[in-house]
């Protein structure tokens, strides 16, 4: 795990970046804006997963479950009962939090840790996938379509910009929560549990209570992202929402950027979102071979980052500095 203190950068950089982000929709076309929205959404989800993995050291493979619960709750409440997704988003968040609490109780009751914890969370996600696929009330594998219309009261927009600002707001919320945790007693306790759970307990840290709390907060935030996905793409299905693909994206973004840091997951996720798009945009005649080469470049970059920057992209600056500081270098 990388050291949180490494992210202690001057905050006017953050302010500057925030300012640029606010004005981006004015200069971007719809395609780039869509890429930016998707990138920010994954950055937000990586931040949410980072709370459990990066801070609490719990390798959850079941976060697609919370993402799916959020999306399905707000969508079903809107489609079947007319409840605005502005409210549904929080209902989904609370339901996900309850699910996380129940899962954590089971996991802690049987003292499941490490790889077994990962497999158990994956198993819970699989159970829900099976349920969603066979539950006609939520239209099984067919999925649910949302209407394409401009209705801000129901969180539907024809333009891309409102979605951009919404997900930017969610990302700020995720950053705020992460920063708050990082600087609070909870953050220090979680780090203690992550580094050595037994030592932390001996020191009086109730590890179970804080691990559950981290899981609940993370699940709540992840679910908000699920509702955003449904409102933006206007179509959800068990394959999309509960599939392992979203979990993979959360993991890759977080680990590549720097788990356990404030900005690492955001950085990793954005870099890989834009890298993927950049590779897809290369002026090459498309054929199967070229497409495969693009994917290989993407994978190669991933391997290089993992090998040479084990602390994540967020440690790149420190690594460059340390190389410069070596004798014989200018």
């Amino acid at each position: 795990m990388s050291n949180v203190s490494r992210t202690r950068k001057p905050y006017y950089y953050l302010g500057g970046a925030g300012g640029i982000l606010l004005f981006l929709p004015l200069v971007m076309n719809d395609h780039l804006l869509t890429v930016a929205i998707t990138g920010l959404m994954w950055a937000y989800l990586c931040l949410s997963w980072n709370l459990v993995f990066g801070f609490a050291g719990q390798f959850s493979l079941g976060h697609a479950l919370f993402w799916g619960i959020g999306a399905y709750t707000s969508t079903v409440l809107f489609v079947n009962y007319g409840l605005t997704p502005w409210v549904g988003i929080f209902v989904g968040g609370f339901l996900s939090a309850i699910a996380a609490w129940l899962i954590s109780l089971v996991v802690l009751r049987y003292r499941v840790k490490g790889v077994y914890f990962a497999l158990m969370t994956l198993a819970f996600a699989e159970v829900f996938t099976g349920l969603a696929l066979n539950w006609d009330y939520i239209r099984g594998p067919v999925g649910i379509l949302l209407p394409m219309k401009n209705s801000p009261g129901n969180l539907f927009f024809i333009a891309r910009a409102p979605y951009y600002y919404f997900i930017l707001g969610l990302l700020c919320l995720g950053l705020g929560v992460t920063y708050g945790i990082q600087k609070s007693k909870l953050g220090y306790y979680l780090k203690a549990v992550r580094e050595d759970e037994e030592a932390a307990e001996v020191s009086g840290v109730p590890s179970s209570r804080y691990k559950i709390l981290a899981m609940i907060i993370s699940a709540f935030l992840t679910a908000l992202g699920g509702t955003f996905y449904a409102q933006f793409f206007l179509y959800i299905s068990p394959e999309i929402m509960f599939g392992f693909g979203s979990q993979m994206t959360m993991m890759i973004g977080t680990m590549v950027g720097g788990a356990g840091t404030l900005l690492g997951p955001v950085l990793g996720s954005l870099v890989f979102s834009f890298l993927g798009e950049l590779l897809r945009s290369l002026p090459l005649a498309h054929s199967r071979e070229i497409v495969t080469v693009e994917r290989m470049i993407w994978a190669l970059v991933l391997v290089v980052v993992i090998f040479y920057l084990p602390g994540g992209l967020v440690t790149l600056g420190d690594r460059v500095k340390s190389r410069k500081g070596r004798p014989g270098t200018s």
Partner: protein
Amino acid sequence: MPEKKLKSWTMIAALCGLLGGSFSFSASEALGAANEVLVAGVLPLTGTNASWGIRNDRGIRYVVDWVNAHGGIKSLKGAKFKYVSADTETKADVAGSQTEKIVSENVSCVFGCNQSPGTLVASQVTERKGVPLITVSDYDPLITQRGFKYIFRTVPVMDKISTSVLVFAQAMNKSQNTKFTKVGILCEDSIVGDSAAKALEKHTKEIGYTVVDVVKYNAATTRDFTGVLSRYKAQGVELIVGHNRPADSIQIVRNLKEIVFNSAMIGGIGGGWVAPEFLRNLGPLSEGVIIASSETPDVKVGKFAELKKEYEEKYKEEMPSTFIGGISGAWLLYRAIEQCASTDPKVIAKTLHSIEIKYGDGFYFQQFGCKFDEKGDNTLASAVIFQVQNNLRVSVFPAEFANHKPIWPKPVFK
């Protein structure tokens, strides 16, 4: 500004320039010259559906090249097609962002996406921008149920294509004086798999046959069907029907052979059953399998025979239905542009709503021609049944399109 900071900012600016340059270069590349008509395929070139997307892409390219080599679009003074394809990676969100990119480059028409969730997302983008999206292989009913004006589907909806295998079985029972009526449904748990299972169950009951069971399996994790097929065998199932992915359709037939389950009919609906991999992997094991599709592999109409020969020589595989879908869709677009003499997507969409293409016209080989209703569904679309005979797919039903007599019931496994 200190030198170190200056260097950092220069590097950041250079990186931004590189990123922006690449995006803009790609866009200007795609815009092409004034006498070009830009069309795009947003297709799964990687991922689980790549097998279909790549062949679809080949079909579109074939017609584009053919038109360009034969003087271009005559009503536009010989303007040439320019075709670009974008990979969806078989992901709905990537299909959305790729479509956004394509439509921002003044494209006249989009083909997509060989994956129903991708098409559902991509069609929202094309609808907002007023660009027609032609789908030549997505059967999901939801696609055309949203009141969109710019979506066009050339293939029949899943209900129609699914029930055709039972219509065939019913006709065979009548003509051959057999009584095979116990149906076992086995479908993947995807959108189209679910639609197929529901349609099959409903139609089985409507014609008075018995539904022994409906099994929807997890397509991501199921690799063996011995359990469910053994149960079907014990329950006396006579007609096995389903919509499945390529690997699953192959495995189902292998498992049937392993447990020596000789049902009267194995009826596959589109999907993996029409993929070239099916015949290539199974060889003689696939003898007698019945397959429903909207494309026939052995019609004797127009340019079909020479096209088939050309494809098989070039790609060393049987010409697949997804290729036929690609060429049919591209030919439909070509005819529409010839008719309206415009590259304006809205004018093209209007023409698509009114145009009628006969089966066998040029490169249009999807049964039985094309005429769209107000929702964008093809009112002439229908299914044809073919059967594997001597390691070839041959059309056997309905009678007016049959080139061979059906073998009924299916021969036992050797």
